[in-house]
């Protein structure tokens, strides 16, 4: 018979709060979070915090935390409550798959933080950058242009061969 499952923390939400800041550490975040916690559960992690509680309470805490460093604090939903055995590294032997995705995006956060700050300061993105983040197929070289290049390259190498040949001949002489 399958085992019955009785969930815990029903009706709550859990959010990850990531901090990638030169000024604020996960410890700073957690101290502030405890000050304003209003009954929500707070768990400190290597990258920031996990906050669990009723949705509106969690939102209030997060809004206050964001104020500490709006450009370097990022927030995301989590399906599991903190420390859940099913997702815990200690039980799985290795990280759960989602961890690697976070690891990947953490590497990009500095660009995002700079972007957020610049935007706040009214800086407009340049055309090259807008083009770079726009999703489109890599433009292919026009076939006629490709042919031109090929023809000029083959001429070049033919000329080079002729020169080397002449040089060789001169040696054998």
């Amino acid at each position, binding site marked *: 018979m399958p085992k019955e499952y009785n969930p815990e923390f029903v009706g709550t939400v859990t959010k990850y709060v990531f901090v990638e800041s030169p000024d604020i550490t996960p410890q700073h975040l957690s101290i502030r979070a405890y000050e304003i916690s209003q009954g929500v559960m707070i768990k400190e992690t290597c990258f920031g915090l996990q906050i669990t509680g009723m949705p509106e309470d969690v939102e209030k805490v997060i809004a206050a935390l964001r104020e500490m460093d709006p450009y370097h604090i990022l927030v995301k939903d989590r399906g599991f409550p903190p420390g859940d055995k099913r997702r815990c*590294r200690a039980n799985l*032997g*290795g*990280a759960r798959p989602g961890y690697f*995705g976070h*690891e990947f995006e953490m590497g990009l956060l500095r660009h995002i933080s700079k972007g957020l700050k610049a935007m706040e300061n009214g800086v407009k993105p340049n055309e090259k950058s807008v083009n770079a983040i726009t999703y489109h197929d890599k433009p292919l070289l026009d076939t006629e242009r490709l042919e031109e290049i090929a023809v000029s390259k083959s001429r070049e190498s033919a000329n080079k061969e002729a020169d080397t040949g002449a040089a060789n001949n001169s040696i054998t002489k």
Partner: protein
Amino acid sequence: MNDADQKVRVAQLSCGPEHSGVQKEIDEAAAAVNAEMFFPDVTLKDVKKAYKEFGLEARSADLKLAIARAKALVDGSVEADAVFIATCFRCSEAAIVRNELRRYIHNNSTLPVVSYSFTERTTSGTLLTRMEALTTIAKRRALLAREKQVGITLGIDSGSATTKAVIMKDNEIVGTGWTPTTEVLKSADIVVNDALTMAGLKMSDIQAIGTTGYGRYLIGEKMKADIIQEELTVNSKGAVYLADRQHGEATVIDIGGMDNKAISVQDGIPGTFTMGGICAGASGRFLEMTSKRLGVDITELGPLAMKGLSKEVPMNSYCIVFGTQSLVNALAEGHSKENVAAAACRSVAEQVFEQQLQEVDIKEPVIMVGGTSLIAGLVNEMGRLLQTEVVVPPYSQYIGSVGSALLASGFIDEKKKGE
């Protein structure tokens, strides 16, 4: 905690079991044989590096992760006792990665590997025999190293179609028994009595007992067997023992009554193996049906097939129902019994070849065992497909019993010490 209590750590390389709802089944199968699944710990940097170095351009990130985890196992940065590779059935991308990782680990480490493609219907029961074999290979290498039978031992193989018993004495087979399986315990009693009579021995003469096959637990518990062991390791051991190929590489093929086993063996110990089969159309059951339809005894099917030409009759037993249909059609069209028998053998060999032998590396010698290995037509067709001469050792139909009796003799000394 002694060695027997220590859990066997099985590294899982997979894509899809969590989202198919079958991760629990994998964990339960492992727990049932005192093993635990774990995910080798790697970093994102490892994933990028390993994936690039391995050179297989999988697009699915979870498969890239599986590649990195496999490399960590081979490099030795993560320790494991065995490896379980699982991906979704019908995913071609995953099938390529699964096969290449299995081969990579097998060729570059001593870790036993089993690969499996699951559906949402996969249960822990289906996985149990595989897990048991994995843990046995990982933890009982000393037991599997036995090359000679000593004393007087009894081996019982309770298969889905037939029950077999063998009594061995001083490295010789001295008694055998064989009967179709009806009630598991009753069938076992019959074959044990037959084997004892043939050997001229009494039950009290037996020094150790081993059981294998589907009914192994039931019989093993009743008879207080010294070793109750799944058929993958037992048959490998029995096959190389009987074929006198205990050292080096070999491939063991056992086309059973309900499922088939293909095992790549190194020094008598399974390295990689597959078990199962999509339909009974790829099993001995289809040949049994064929012989009934042809009105011949199953023992006559092989010689009959040897006289026929398999390519004269189109037959595809991917599904046993369609296979039977083409059998009926062939006879209605006036094909000879010989040709039909040969075609049935070819069809079963083809199904095993296509569905299972692709999952193991075929290394010579290829040893065919089990009841179906006595059907010469089937052995012939398998040899033709594999382009090799297939070895059928003596007593090949008793393979499980011989393997069990051989392994059981390892317990005689232990028992003496205990007395």
